[in-house]
């Protein structure tokens, strides 16, 4: 029974492609954008050390870059949105980063309801 369940799971996992397969990368990029906004917001209030902020910027940017590179089609609207997010400077205004996160969330919701 376990073997049958595993085979079924593998088949189901193997079936997803295109935007559906991209969904998790859009989610990752959205989450990283939202976290980037949170980090910049807290940093602007003097609650974080400079070293931590620089380090988080690097890891979050890596995460977004990795999501962008794993997309099946980078020229989709969400691909371009992630690309635009990557163009933001490290110390971008939190509201602007949140706007990118919101747009990506909208793509997520559309794909999930499709």
């Amino acid at each position: 029974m376990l073997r049958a369940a595993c085979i079924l799971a593998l088949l189901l996992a193997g079936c997803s492609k295109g935007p559906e397969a991209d969904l998790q990368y859009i989610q990752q990029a959205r989450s990283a954008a939202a976290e980037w906004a949170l980090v910049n917001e807290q940093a602007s209030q003097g609650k974080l050390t400079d070293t931590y902020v620089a380090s988080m910027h690097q890891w979050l940017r890596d995460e977004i870059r990795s999501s962008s590179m794993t997309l099946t089609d980078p020229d989709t609207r969400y691909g371009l949105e992630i690309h635009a997010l990557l163009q933001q400077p490290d110390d971008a205004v939190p509201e602007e980063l949140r706007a990118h996160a919101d747009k990506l969330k909208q793509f997520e919701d559309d794909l999930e309801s499709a």
Partner: protein
Amino acid sequence: MNPLELTLGIMTAVGGFVDISELVFAAKAGSQFGYALIWVFALATVGIIVFSEMSGRVAAVAKQPVFNLMRHRLGLKLGLLTLAASVVSTLITCAAEIGGVALILNYLTGAPYVLMAIAMTGFFIASIWVLPFKWIERTYGLLGLFMIIFATALVAINPPWSQFAGGFVPQVPKGLSTKELLTFGYFTVAIISAVMFPYEVYFYSSGGIEEQWGPKDMLTNRLTSIIGMGLGSTLAIAILANSAQLFGPANVDPEIPGSAALQAAIPFGKWGLILALLGMFFAVAGAAIETCMANAYSIAQFFGWIWGRHKKPWEAPRFTLTWLVLLMLSLVIVLTGVDVMVLVEFAVLFSILVLPLTYLPLLLLAGDKKYMGEHVNGLFANALGWLYFAVITAAAVAALPLFILTSGGNG
């Protein structure tokens, strides 16, 4: 009883509960499902208390660590299979902890990740080589208590306490889509696995033998299990609840360990951040040592070698060589550049598959009057033991399909 004797439990728990996997899983669980997964932590905490108390009792009375039992109770072939699976899972976990420590040092100092991974491996080798077992557990167990900042942060952000309390009631949130239900299922299984990591009982029972526990230490064993694991669980639940309050509404699904530190920075500023990072550093460093030692204990006990840190390194040469090689192998895994979070996901998956085989021999021996005499499992301990055995077996069966269907909880 000397309160410092509780440090074995504190190190086991802080390094077991609040290791790198917990920092991420608890935070992700909170951001995605609010307080709805708190009951899984509570359920699994009772499970790890039951089995760690049992393993400590068996170590004290029958003088048998877990892997001795495994070979005798499961037979050579199944025992060897369990050993192999367990060594792989614990090795991956150890690599994830080393990567995690390097990441945390990167957040603290800005020093390069790879350099920190190499330096910390050297530091761990020196720690295990030089420090007596008692000092290893005291240093990492007590300094890991900086993690209490996460519980303090929860009080400071003052969440809706009625909703928080409601999280302790077993539940599946209403209105979830099929995909979200599967993800909820995956998180349930992953939390059980991460809380009940087999290496915790390998380390704990071997630690009891290192400390030469006997039947007179039953109270120490019971208190250590309950207080140590209870403390670890409280901290993990605090991380989950902070995340439900701070990350969920902000659309953040924390993917990197550094995110957790924000939970203390938001209410307390820079000092909160630094204390959180220090707590995470010592807890994850403790977990790295714990996983490496647990693996070396397992191998040495299975093959009947002389083992233990109560002996000088050269008095137990094969044991010493084993932990040295295991630490170096873990470092090599980190140096391949594999993502720490990928390591965490695989460690959790492998562990749940090994769990039933780890706990079955323990359960059988703790219930055997011939070995345990008057300290044999009572009706209550036996009932709880078998109940949890059923829970982890069900979780082990569900783990792989859920992992594949949800891409490791990523939807």
